[in-house]
């Protein structure tokens, strides 16, 4: 059986790929790992909801789950932080280097050409 983290990933991938909210049973059917207990799927869906990655609505006796934001939105969030563009300039990450603005980029480009000759 896969680890819980791996399972969270697969379930998010399934929900991102689907259009519209799904029940735990529907999600379970799409998971490659057939030996998975239905309660495990429910547990992971619940965890993801608590972490804020899923939202859920009642549908009869079951819950229907849906991603809180698209995958692209999360990728963008990561990249904004990675490129130090969130504005708070926190010490959360250690970046290799950042892109520079117009005239400075020209100086760097020239230096790069020189170095590569």
């Amino acid at each position, binding site marked *: 059986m896969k680890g819980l*983290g791996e399972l*969270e*990933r697969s379930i*998010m991938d399934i929900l991102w790929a689907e259009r519209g909210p799904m029940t735990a049973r529907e999600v379970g059917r799409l998971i490659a790992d057939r030996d998975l207990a239905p309660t495990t799927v429910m547990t992971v869906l619940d965890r993801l909801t608590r*972490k804020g*990655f899923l939202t859920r609505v009642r549908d009869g006796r079951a819950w229907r789950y849906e991603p809180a934001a698209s*995958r692209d939105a*999360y*990728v*963008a*969030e*990561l*990249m904004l*932080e*990675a*490129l*130090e*563009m969130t*504005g708070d*300039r*926190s*010490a*959360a*990450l*250690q*970046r*290799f*280097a*950042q*892109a*520079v*603005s117009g005239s*400075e*980029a020209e*100086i*760097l*480009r020239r*230096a*790069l050409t020189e*170095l*590569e000759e």
Partner: protein
Amino acid sequence: MIAAATLAALATVCALGAWRLTAARWTWRAPRAAILLWQSLGVTWGLASTGALLAYALEPFGRGVVHGLAYIGLHLREPHDFLRIGALMAGLALFSVLSMVLVAAGAQTLSARRRHRLLLALIARDEPRVPGVRVVDHPGAAAYCLPGLRSQVVVSAGTLRLLSPDELTAVLAHETAHVRERHDLVLLPFAALRWVLPWSKTVHDAHASVALLIEMAADDRARRQCSPKRLATALLRFGTAAAFATPHGALGASTGENVMARVNRLVKPRAELPAHVRFAIVAGSVILTASAPMLWLLPN
């Protein structure tokens, strides 16, 4: 009066020293020693400025700062004239603001990292070409490490396309150096100090200087394992890869200068500061760091 006056002088010396050090360039020839000096200046400035106020306030009791505080705390005594009461209040306030902001900055950083780590777990993938490195599918150029007990090195798909294999190795060696030396912990107090004194140019410059020195220290460590020239071209390629339309004010004005400074260090390395000079800097830093706590204990 001696302790209060000495502590006040020490705080002034630290502030002046920090101001001078922001403009210094010799630090680039010994980044590690310079980082240590910066840390001791920061700690000593904090302890000396609060200590000067407290030492003045507690002088009538003749017990020094540490024992004086314990004394008034235990016996519920207070100084009798207003100037000393004012100094006591100011000293305690400054001390608690400095320590609380440090804790708050640490907590904020930890929570930002926790969120980042959660997102990475859901989104980043492994790439056989770069084992142990997390890859985020985005065309922009980014390479960074997420520090912590289990640090992660992350690159974007754009980075994998942008760099040659040798350059990528160099970048990863640089990031691994950050991870290994826990540079995030070095930078944290300086980032926190910017919250307390956002208008101070010296504090701003001090943070920028330390940030640059940390990059240089990581460059130095990386170049032991990879070609310095490849690290330099990787830096330049990163600098010119404007993948995003940059929001106004998001980038520091000196970003380009910093990149060039690092590149020049890599391709035209100047000799490292001689060992005895570096030793003197380290010894000086240690003595400086020890001086403020000693003065806190001095009875008068």
